[in-house]
């Protein structure tokens, strides 16, 4: 067997250790991909965990890189994993101090699309959450200004949901110039 094939024993990432100690009840699953730790957490505890990740002096995930969502409605295996939660809200974090990334995922059920907004923790979450609302219809509770950001204000539906037709519902052929120019 060549040396490369030998699996090196990785030290457990600090963030996992700390979360296990403090928020064991919040964690649903964990994974890793290309050096990024991925954790899936319960929606009810999401805000508390994210606040902890940001404010803990040892972790200090002070940079919110992105907020987005995934619609799993056409992936049976993914759906079943977390009790048929159709959407997965994803937070990408970066710690300048530890120079490492972290991906936090929060399953959101279709019949309860509310999730606490993190604009209180990271101001930059404002537009990111607006985009996620616009594209997926996730309702960020406590957001100061939850309006559409990419699509026109009078647009109906959320186009990145899997049940939205790729070519739209005819909105690209007909719109009311007079109303939009008013």
């Amino acid at each position, binding site marked *: 067997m060549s040396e490369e094939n030998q699996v090196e024993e990785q030290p457990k990432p600090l963030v996992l250790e700390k979360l296990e100690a403090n928020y064991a009840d919040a964690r649903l699953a964990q994974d890793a991909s290309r050096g990024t730790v991925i954790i899936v957490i319960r929606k009810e505890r999401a805000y508390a965990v994210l606040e902890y990740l940001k404010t803990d002096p040892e972790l200090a995930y002070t940079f919110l890189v992105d907020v987005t969502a995934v619609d799993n409605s056409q992936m049976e295996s993914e759906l079943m994993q977390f009790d048929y939660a159709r959407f997965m809200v994803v937070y990408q974090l970066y710690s300048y101090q530890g120079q490492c990334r972290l991906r936090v995922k929060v399953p959101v059920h279709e019949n309860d699309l509310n999730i606490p907004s993190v604009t209180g923790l990271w101001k930059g979450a404002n537009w990111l959450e607006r985009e996620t609302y616009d594209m997926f219809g996730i309702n960020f509770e406590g957001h100061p200004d939850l309006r559409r950001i*990419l*699509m*026109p204000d009078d647009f109906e539906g959320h*186009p990145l949901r899997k049940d*939205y*037709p*790729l*070519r*739209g*519902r005819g*909105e*690209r*052929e007909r*719109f009311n*110039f007079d109303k*939009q*120019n008013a």
Partner: protein
Amino acid sequence: MGLDFVGRGTEETDGNIITTTIDKVVNWGRKNSLWPMPFGTACCAIEMMATLASKFDLSRFGSEAIRFSPRQSDLLIVSGRISIKMMPVLKRIYDQMPDPKWVISMGACASCGGVFDTYTLIQGVDQFIPVDVYIPGCPPRPEDLIDAVLQVQQKIASGASPKGVEVVYE
């Protein structure tokens, strides 16, 4: 740019008088002083910028003065993708341009939506504004844009009215 539309007058006037029609003079002036309004929304706009800049130098063909105000321009160059949110803006800019006005639809996206057959993209701006010259390509080369401007010039010189003019005055 030659004055090919004039008559030289008679022997007696010794070339001091030229004869022509007012339309031809006006069209000659219009043709050689097109003021383009760039409407660049995507990658095609990069090629348009290259066309306007010194290497390709569109001003050699009388389109020197790029205007960023529609009220001062008579040639609209639509270069790039137009989304359903942008289309009312484009329409408004077109409406603000004084007559006579011409429109170039540059690239696949502006002309037919290109590869973006999606909910958000207008499948050809000619559904909403009249287009005089289409340029194929993704993106078209600067030479293609220059060629399109020359075609607009030919159209003006021939006395044809722009696509957007519905009433033709005799």
